[in-house]
C-alpha cells in the first residue's frame, strides 16, 4: 500500500507481460521515454544485454530530479553512470524471488549522486517487499550467491526433505507442505529470536535422540562445505558475468 497502482507506469516493447500490470491497476505503455517523462523514480528491469540500448534511448530525457534504480543483474553502478548523464542519481538493487510474496531479501548500493534521501526513499519503499539493506556494491554479487540463487538451494533442500519422507511412507503432497512449513518455521525462529543458528540447532538435539542421528548423516555428507561451495560458485559466476 505504499504507492497507488495508478501512480505506477510500466513499459515493455510488447504486450506479453503488460496484462499482469494492468490487472493490478497500473498504467502501461510501449514507450520507454514516456516512463521517464512521467516518473520521478525509474526502475530499470531489463535483461542485461538489452540495457545499454535502453539507456541510450532514455538518456536525453533523464534529469537531475530523476532517481534511476537498476535491478539489472551484473551491470555495475560504474557502467550505469557511464551510460547516463553525469548528474543522474543512480542506485543499484539486487532483489530475490520471494519479493513476490513480500518476503524478499534485497540489497542496494548508491551511486555518486545518490544521497541519504534517495537511499531512505528506496529503503522505505522496498521494505514492503521484505528485508531491504544498503550495502557496499561489492556485496551485491555475494547477495546473488547467498540469496538470489539461494532461494533455489532452499527449494532443492525442501524437495529432498519431502523425498525422504515419501521414502519413509508419507504421501508426497503432504510431505511437501510439511517440508515448506518446517523451513518457514525454522527461518521465522531464526529471525525472531536473533539466536545463533548453532544454538537453535543444539536446542533441538536431545541427547541420543533422532535429531542428532540425522545431523550426523548431514555432517557425513559434508553438507556445510557443499553449501559453502554453492554460494561461492554463484558469487564467482555473478562476478564473471558482470565483467562480460
Amino acid at each position: 500500500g505504499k504507492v497507488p497502482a495508478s501512480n505506477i507506469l510500466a513499459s515493455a516493447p510488447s504486450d506479453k507481460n503488460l496484462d499482469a500490470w494492468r490487472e493490478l491497476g497500473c498504467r502501461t505503455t510501449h514507450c520507454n521515454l514516456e516512463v521517464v517523462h512521467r516518473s520521478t523514480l525509474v526502475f530499470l528491469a531489463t535483461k542485461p544485454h538489452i540495457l545499454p540500448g535502453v539507456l541510450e534511448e532514455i538518456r536525453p530525457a533523464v534529469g537531475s530530479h530523476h532517481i534511476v534504480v537498476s535491478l539489472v543483474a551484473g551491470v555495475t553502478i560504474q557502467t550505469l553512470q557511464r551510460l547516463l548523464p553525469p548528474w543522474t542519481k543512480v542506485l543499484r538493487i539486487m532483489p530475490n524471488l520471494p519479493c513476490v510474496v513480500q518476503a524478499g531479501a534485497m540489497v542496494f548500493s548508491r551511486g555518486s549522486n545518490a544521497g541519504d534521501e534517495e537511499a531512505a526513499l528506496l529503503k522505505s519503499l522496498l521494505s514492503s517487499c521484505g528485508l531491504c539493506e544498503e550495502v557496499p556494491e561489492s556485496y551485491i554479487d555475494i547477495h546473488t550467491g547467498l540469496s538470489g540463487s539461494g532461494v533455489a538451494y532452499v527449494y532443492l533442500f525442501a524437495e529432498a526433505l519431502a523425498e525422504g519422507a515419501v521414502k519413509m511412507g508419507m504421501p508426497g503432497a503432504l510431505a511437501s507442505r510439511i517440508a515448506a512449513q518446517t523451513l518457514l518455521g525454522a527461518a521465522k525462529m531464526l529471525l525472531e529470536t536473533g539466536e545463533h543458528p548453532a544454538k537453535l540447532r543444539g536446542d533441538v538435539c536431545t541427547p541420543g535422540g533422532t535429531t542428532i542421528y540425522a545431523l550426523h548423516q548431514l555432517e557425513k555428507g559434508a553438507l556445510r562445505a557443499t553449501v559453502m561451495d554453492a554460494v561461492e560458485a554463484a558469487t564467482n559466476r555473478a562476478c564473471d558475468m558482470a565483467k562480460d
Partner: protein
Amino acid sequence: MSVGFIGAGQLAFALARGFTAAGVLAAHKITASSPDTDLPTVSGLRKMGVNFTVSNKDTVKSSDVLFLAVKPPIIPFILEEVGPDIEARHIVVSCAAGVTISSIEKKLSTFCPTPKVIRCMTNTPVIVREGATVYATGTHADVEDGKLLEQLMASVGFCTEVEEDLIDAVTGLSGSGPAYAFTALDALADGGVKMGLPRRLAVRLGAQALLGAAKMLLESEQHPGQLKDHVCSPGGATIHALHFLESGGFRSLLINAVEASCIRTRELQHLADQEKISPAAIKKTLLDKVKLESPSLSVASASKVSLFTNRSKKN
C-alpha cells in the same frame, strides 16, 4: 585419608602426581602396587615419595580409598585376589573402561556383603590437573562416599556425578578425547612446519591455540559456533581454512570418533561379561602377561587375554 592404587601404570601415576601437586594428599599417604617393577611409572611413583609394593593385599590394607587402576580384563582377577581383604570401610573406585558397577559388586559380594563401589571414568590430563572425570555410585556407596571421591578428583580437574549408563559415552568423548587432541595438534604442527615454522615453535603455538580456545569456551556463555564466527572475518584467512575443514568432513569425523570409542567400550564390556575362562586356571599366566598388549581378544585361548583399551596407556 589414605589412597591406594592397584596398578602402577599411567593412570596411577597421573592421579598420584595430580593429587600430590594439588596438595590434597601427601605422597606418603599413597600406596601403589604392581607385580611388574620394571614399569617406568614405578620409578616415577617412587621418586614422588609414594609407597610402592608388589603386594596388592598390602595396598588394600593401608588404604581407605582404593583405586583399581588396571586394564579392564585384569579387574576380575584383582577382585578375586583382594576380595577377602575388602572391608565395609573401603571405597573401591574402578577406573576401568567398560567395567560395570554390577560386575564388580557381584564379584566382591562373595567376600563382603555391602561393598562400596564407585565407577569412575577419568582421563590422562589429571596429571596436569586438567582432567575430566565422571563417576557413578554403586548400591552401597553413600552420598558422602561420592562426595569424597568428587573432592579428590576435583583437585585434578573437572569432576561430576553421572548416571552409569552415560559413562561409555564419556569414555568416547573425554576418555579418548586427549588422543584426538594430540592427533590434531600433531597435524596442526605439520601444517605450521609446511608453511615454514620450526617444529618446536609449531607444536608450542598449536597447543597454546587449542588451550586458549578451550579456555575461552569454558569461560564463555556463548555457543562454540558463535565463538567461531568471531574469529572469521568476512573473506578472511580463517573462513577459507574452515571451508577446507568442512569439505573434509571434519565434524563428522569427530562425531564418528566419539561414537566408535563409545561403541567399542560397550563391545568390550559385553565380551568381558561373557568371559568363561576359569580365573584360577589362567591367573598366574595373565599376571605374567601384564606387559603385553595385543589388540585382539581371544576368549577361547587361555594364554592371551589382554584387551585393547580405549585410553591408550602405553608406557
